[in-house]
C-alpha cells in the first residue's frame, strides 16, 4: 500500500476519535480518583486528602450491603452463564451450518431475545416462577434470565464465525481419513477457539454486569449489580466510588486476561 500524506480529514477525525475516547473514559477516571478521597471527603472534587479509607469501608457490612456475598454470587453466576453460553452457542452455530426445519424461526427467536426489553423478561420469569410455586433464586431464574441476554450474542458471533469458515479444511481432513469427531477436535476447534474465548468473555461480562434482568428474578439474595443499584439511592459517601473502582478493575482484569488468551491462541495457531 502506498503511503499518502495524511489529509486534513484524518486530523479532524483523529481529534473526534480522541474526544470520544476521553468521553468514554473521563468520567470513569473521575470516580477512580475520588475513591481515594480522604475520610472527610465528599462525593465531588476537590480531594480532601488521600486515603484508602473507603476501600476499607467496603469490607464492613454496615457501610454497604453484603459486598462479599453479592460479589461471590455474581462471580459464580457469571461463570455458569459463561460456560453454558459457550457450549450452547457453539452447538447452535454448528447446527446453523446445516439446513434444518425451523432454522429460520430459531434464528429469529434468538434475535427476539436480544430486542425484548430486559425488564419484560424479568417480569415474565418472575411471574412464571411465582405461578408455578417455584422460589426464584440467582442460580435458577436469574441464571435463565441472563442466558436470554448472553446466548443471542454468542449465537450471532458463532453464526458470523461459521459464515467465514471455509469447509475445505474439513474436506481435506476427511480426505485424509479423519472421523467427524477428529475433524472437529483437531481442525475446526483450534481454528474457532479464539472466537469461543471471545464468546466466553461476552457471556461472563454481560452476566456479571446485568441487573435489569435480575431485578425480579434474583430471589432472596442480591447479585453485585443489584447491590450497587440499591446503593445509588441511599449511599452518599465515596464508598460507592470505591466499589465502582474495585468492580471496574476486576472487569479490566477479566478483559485483559481474555485478550491475552486470544493472542496466545492466535500465535499458537500461526506457529502450527
Amino acid at each position, binding site marked *: 500500500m502506498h*503511503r499518502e500524506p495524511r489529509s486534513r*480529514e484524518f486530523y479532524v*477525525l*483523529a481529534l*473526534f*476519535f480522541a474526544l*470520544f475516547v476521553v468521553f468514554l473514559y*473521563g*468520567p*470513569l477516571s473521575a*470516580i477512580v480518583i*475520588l475513591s481515594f478521597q480522604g475520610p472527610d471527603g465528599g462525593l*465531588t*472534587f476537590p480531594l480532601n486528602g488521600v486515603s484508602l479509607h473507603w476501600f476499607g469501608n467496603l469490607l464492613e457490612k454496615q457501610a454497604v450491603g453484603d459486598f462479599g456475598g453479592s460479589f461471590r454470587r455474581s462471580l459464580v453466576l457469571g461463570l455458569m452463564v459463561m460456560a453454558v453460553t459457550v457450549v*450452547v452457542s457453539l*452447538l*447452535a452455530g454448528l447446527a*446453523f*451450518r*446445516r*439446513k*434444518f426445519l*425451523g*432454522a429460520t424461526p430459531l*434464528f429469529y*427467536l*434468538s*434475535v*427476539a431475545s*436480544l*430486542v*425484548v*426489553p430486559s425488564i*419484560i*423478561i424479568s*417480569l*415474565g420469569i418472575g*411471574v412464571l416462577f411465582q405461578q408455578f410455586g417455584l422460589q426464584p433464586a440467582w442460580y435458577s431464574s436469574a441464571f*435463565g434470565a441472563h442466558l*436470554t441476554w448472553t*446466548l443471542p450474542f454468542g*449465537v*450471532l458471533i458463532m453464526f*458470523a464465525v461459521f*459464515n*467465514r469458515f*471455509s469447509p475445505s479444511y474439513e474436506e481435506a481432513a476427511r480426505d485424509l481419513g479423519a472421523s467427524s469427531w477428529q475433524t472437529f477436535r483437531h481442525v475446526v476447534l483450534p481454528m474457532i477457539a479464539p*472466537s469461543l*474465548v*471471545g464468546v466466553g*468473555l461476552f457471556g461472563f461480562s454481560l452476566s456479571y454486569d446485568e441487573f*435489569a434482568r435480575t*431485578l*425480579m428474578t434474583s430471589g432472596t439474595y442480591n447479585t453485585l*449489580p443489584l447491590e*450497587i443499584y440499591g446503593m*445509588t439511592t441511599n449511599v452518599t459517601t465515596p464508598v460507592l*466510588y470505591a466499589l465502582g473502582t474495585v468492580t471496574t478493575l476486576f*472487569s479490566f482484569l477479566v478483559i485483559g486476561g481474555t*485478550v491475552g488468551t486470544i493472542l496466545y491462541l492466535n500465535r499458537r495457531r500461526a506457529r502450527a
Partner: protein
Amino acid sequence: MATIADATTRVATKARTRKPGSRIGEFAAYLQALPLLVILGGFLLLPLLMIAVVSFWDYDFAAMYPDFVTFNYTETLGSWVTWKTYLNTLKFAVIVWMITLFVGFWVAYFLAFHVRTSAMQTVLFLVCTVPFLTSNIIRMISWIPVLGRNGLVNSALVDTGLVAAPVEWLLYSDFAVVLAMVHLYTLFMVTPIFNTLMRIDRSLVEAARDAGASNLQVLTNVILPLAKPGMAIGTIFVVTLVMADFSTVQVMSGGQSASVALMMKNQMSLLQYPAAAANAVILLVLVLMMVAGILRIVDIRKEL
C-alpha cells in the same frame, strides 16, 4: 471481537458443499440446536406467554386472580400519563439514536478508513469496547462528580467566569439522561457500522477516485449507501435499549423524568403485576414493530 478482526482476512466462503440428503447430519443439527431452543423456550417464550395471559387477570393489593378482564389495557391506554410517558420514551429514543448514529458512524469510519494497520485497528477498537464490558451503573454514576452542582464542569465554568452560578440542569435532567445514554450505548452503533465498513471492497473506493470523485463524493455515493446495513443493526440495538431503559432515566433524571420501563418497574414494586403485564405487552408490540420495520431494510443473516 476476534470475528471482527478476522473480517480483514476472511475468505469468501458462501458456497457450502454439503452432501445432500444426509439424514444423520440433519438429526445431528436438531440435537445441536436443541439446547438453544429449550433455554429460549423456557426463559423467553414461556415468560412472554405468561405475561400475555396475566395481562388479562384481575388483581388487588395482595394477589392476582385468574380471570379475563380488559381493564388493565383500558386503564393503561386511557390514561394520559401513559401517553405522555410513551412520548417521553420515544423522545429519548429519537434523540439518542440521532446522536449515537452520528458519533458511531464517524468513529467507525475513522477506524475503518483512516487507521492503516490492522493491529492498530484492533487496539483502538478494543479501547472503544472495554467500557462496554464494565458495569453500566458504575458508568452512570461516574457522571455525578462530573456534572453535579460542585462537579468538574461547573467548577470549570465558574472558575473561568463563564457563568456566575453553577449550572443546575447538567445533572438530574433530561440532558443528563441523554448524555448518559449516549455514553452507554454508542458502542452498539460503532461495532455494527465498523463491521460493515470493513467489508467494503477497497477497490470500489479506488474506482470512484479514478473516475474523478472527490472525498465527499466517495463518502456520500459509495461508503454511506454500503454502510446502511450496519447502521440499521446499530439502530435496532440503540432503539431497543433506550425503549427498555429504566435505570438511566431513574438515576440521571433524579426521578424527574419518566420512561415506560420505569413506569412498569414502579407498578411491579407495587405488586400490580397485571397492570405491568399489560404495559409490557404494549411496549413489546411497539418495540417489535419498530424492529420489524428496520428488518425490512436489512437482512441480518447476510450481514453477519
